């Protein structure tokens, strides 16, 4: 609508036969196929919108959250995860790493891990989805190495001085997944319940897991 509106405003002699929104043959084909499939009851615009939004925006973090939740719930799984992250996430069917290695690093009361890619934006996408914009930003990439505590404070994460802070630099070959500390008050929780406490940033190391709401 906005485009139409703008177009009306400059609809002068330069634009008589020019349609800025003219669709390509492929775009028309997609529209026609969607109309046909909708007519046959196979698709609806809303269902497609939901899938598209998932694939364009939200894909991923919930995969990592399931991995973390299982590590919390099952000590033997956590051992496997910390020993060989790539193999352990494959147990969920999460694969497709571009020949690289996934290393899981565990936060404890004494150690906090945070992940960066100083060179570009390497990121464990099969488990975390698309990286957030700040992860790709030059300031984060530089400052999380030079002044990690200050950066984490800006994320709202204040670390006691005695906590050992480890910054992991991702590469095309090795990518990292932070296993945050399991929140108190979650004894006996199912993996599914636990997974809801694991936001994306907790697996990058710029946040903690969520506290269970009472």
């Amino acid at each position: 609508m906005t485009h139409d509106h703008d177009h009306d405003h400059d609809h002068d002699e330069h634009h008589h036969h020019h349609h800025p929104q003219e669709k390509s043959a492929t775009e028309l084909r997609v529209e026609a196929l969607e109309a046909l499939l909708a007519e046959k009851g196979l698709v609806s615009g809303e269902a497609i919108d939901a899938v598209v939004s998932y694939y364009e925006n939200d894909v991923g973090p919930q995969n990592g959250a399931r991995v973390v939740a299982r590590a919390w719930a099952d000590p033997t799984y956590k051992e496997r995860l910390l020993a060989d992250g790539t193999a352990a996430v494959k147990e969920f069917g999460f694969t497709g790493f571009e020949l690289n290695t996934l290393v899981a690093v565990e936060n404890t009361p004494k150690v906090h891990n945070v992940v960066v890619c100083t060179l570009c934006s390497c990121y464990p996408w099969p488990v975390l989805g698309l990286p957030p914009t700040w992860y790709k930003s030059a300031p984060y990439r530089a400052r999380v190495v030079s002044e990690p505590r200050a950066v984490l404070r800006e994320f709202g994460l204040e670390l006691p001085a005695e906590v050992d802070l480890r910054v992991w630099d991702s590469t095309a070959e090795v990518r990292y997944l932070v296993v945050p500390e399991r929140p108190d008050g979650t004894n006996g929780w199912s993996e599914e319940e636990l997974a809801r406490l694991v936001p994306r940033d907790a697996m990058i190391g710029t946040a903690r897991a969520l506290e269970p709401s009472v």
Partner: protein
Amino acid sequence: MTQLADLDSALAETAPLPRANGELVFDEPWQGRALGMGIVALESAGISLVEFSPFLAEAVARHGYDPAEPAAAAYYTAWLDALETCLAGRGLPGVVG
């Protein structure tokens, strides 16, 4: 909803989704639309991704490779071909046209 990991594991060997540094690539909105439409239609028609993947691999191979054509455009054009062929084979004539 079909998860990305399901899609990846079904297509990894035959016709993996186009990516750059791990991120899915959609150069133009129609490509995401084509993917979403396919996922929804296959689910509704009860066709699994494993059943769909040979159609996709065949369509990708038939489409061929042209260095001048962006990879995502080539892939999702083939995706549409495969979707039409696969659905037509399931007695949904009129889909191909």
